[in-house]
């Protein structure tokens, strides 16, 4: 029987990897994978806790997240296709449309 604490450590590790990947990588695909990694880190913790407390709600929620992540994946992929078609690039630094123009007055 593996201790529930180990699952927590695994979840935190995966989540941290996700965050670091999200922040440090410039490729949008890798960033998306990092996001998925964070989602699944949370899923692991949910399932572990669900098992620990013998309550099915956590597992239901995990299934739910997986389903939503799948739906998300299709939207993201469509988005990336459009982005690439328009900008011919998948570099996250290239997309700075939210940045404000500097002006002096």
């Amino acid at each position, binding site marked *: 029987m593996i201790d529930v604490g180990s699952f927590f450590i695994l979840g935190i590790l995966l989540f941290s990897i996700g965050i670091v990947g999200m922040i*440090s990588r410039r490729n949008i695909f890798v960033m998306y994978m990092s996001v998925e990694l964070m989602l699944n880190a949370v899923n692991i913790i949910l399932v572990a806790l669900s098992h620990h407390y013998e309550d099915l709600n956590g597992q239901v929620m995990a299934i739910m997240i997986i389903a939503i992540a799948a739906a998300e994946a299709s939207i993201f992929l469509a988005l990336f296709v459009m982005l690439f078609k328009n900008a011919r690039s998948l570099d996250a630094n290239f997309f700075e449309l939210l940045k*404000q123009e500097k002006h002096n*007055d």
Partner: protein
Amino acid sequence: MIESSLLGWVVGSVFFSSVFIMMISLFAKYNDDIPPSIYTVLGLGGPAVSLLCSIMIIYDFLQTGTGVHYKAFSWLNIEGFVIDASLMLDALSAAMLSFVSFVGFIIHLYAHAYMKEDPSYARFFSWFNLFMASMFLLILADNPIMMFIGWEGVGLCSYLLISFYFESEENVEAGNKAFILNRIGDFGFLSGLSLLFIHLGSIGLDFNSLEANIHLIPSSTLNLIAILLFIGAMGKSAQIPLYIWLPDAMAGPTPVSALIHAATMVTAGVYMVARFNFLYAITEEVGLFIAYVGAFSALLAALIAMRQDDIKKILAYSTMSQLGYMFMAVGLGAYSYGIFHVFTHAFFKALLFMGAGAIILLLHHEQDIKKMGALKNKMPFIYAMMLIATLSISGLPPFSGFFSKDAILNHLFASQNYLIFSMALLTAGLTSYYMFRLLIIVFISPSNKEHHLLSESKLINVTLFILSIGALFTGFINLPAFFGGNENYSLWLNLPDTHFHLSHTSELILLFINISVALTGIIFALSHYRQSSYDPSLGFLDKPIKNKFYIDEIYEYIFVKPLAWLSVFIVKVIDEKIIDSFIHTLSSGYQRLSYYTDVVQNGNVRYYALYMSVGIVCIFVYLGVS
């Protein structure tokens, strides 16, 4: 007993006609099929109804002798402090009401004839009727607060009607001048009212209870109140030092000058002093002060009027001069003589203005008397009317002005204020001089100009004729004992006059002096102007008089220029240099700060994720520590 609500209708009918005219004329902007005659019906109907109501009330008052009190509604009721919107008729207000409603109606008729070609006919009558309503409110007010509403109302209408032809900037400036100088006076009036309120507000502020409780106020405060209230009268009645608006007020249409700036509004100050007679009777020093202000105003105005060329400005200065007489009278305790002079003055001065207006109309709006001349044969009727009014204002028997002016002069002499008396006497001589100068230059002196006269209006002539009867005969209602009368008007007014006894001989001598002074003025005027309209020199006084003693210029330098300089200083230094620069430094500082902080907002999503995770870490650290 007559229905007391008639008193409300005196005010109400002119007020409603004013409001209706205004509403209809606004409506008429979008509808072309409104006949202009509806303005005539309303504009003349309102004053006519007021006149009828006043006649009924005054007739009843003469029969029964009991005052009428009408409470329209309770205006303020705060924890026992009540101000009623109520009107009161006693002998004093009945005396004022009688000529204001009568002369007012006649001048409305005249104004109809005078203004009927004017495109702003409706606007004129709306304001003219509003003026009548305010004036009635002022006269009939039962407490000083209602009186103040009327007081402000007439000031507002005066302003509106002076700048009636607002297309010309000069007229707008004249209106502003009148309004601002009146504000100064009104500030004094309001301060006086506030002091009254502080001391007697809890007991009741209507005139009757003020009269009963005036002794509760310490006498130094009483003097202050009396002076403050009189400052209001200085503004409204154009006395030194607040008089300079009155000559400029002649920028308004002539009916306005006749009604507002000669017969009614400017006498409101005299009426106010007479109304507060219980106050002024126990503050004799202030009374003396008032009399001196009146005397100096009368003399100054008479001097200036000697060399003015604008027919309406001459009349404006003569109005100020006559108001000076009234203040001399009320200041020295002769309230009924003051009111009597107000009464007769309303007739002959309105007649003078309306005659002047008729001449101006016939001569295509020419106001310079030097450009008139030899008009006697061209307009004999107007000449006769002007002659009656001029004789009346000069104080020659049996015209009305003689009786009122003679009564005042006798009172001044009997009160032993000989300086005031001699100034008044000198003013009387100057009055007949400058009035006959006007008359002779306009009607008699030879002129080489050809005048193309317009045709005379019948309605104008009828109104002139009616007023001339007043100017001729109203003097007889206060026939003094010397002429076998009984001073019925003074008896009826029943004001707390100070009476001085004069022996029969001294009255005779005074009568002789008064008449001979007036005649001297006339003889001088005849000898100067019968042959030509050229002004003979007055020696060292010539320049100051022609330039109105530089009073306007002095005021310009003492008050207007420093104020303008102060405004510029505030704008250029305090506002721009201090306040603006502070705000600008603040805002540019924020801008510079944002220049440095907006590095974080670089639009790159990955950095946002970093900030978010740093934030979350911080929150968890904080939660973990605490």
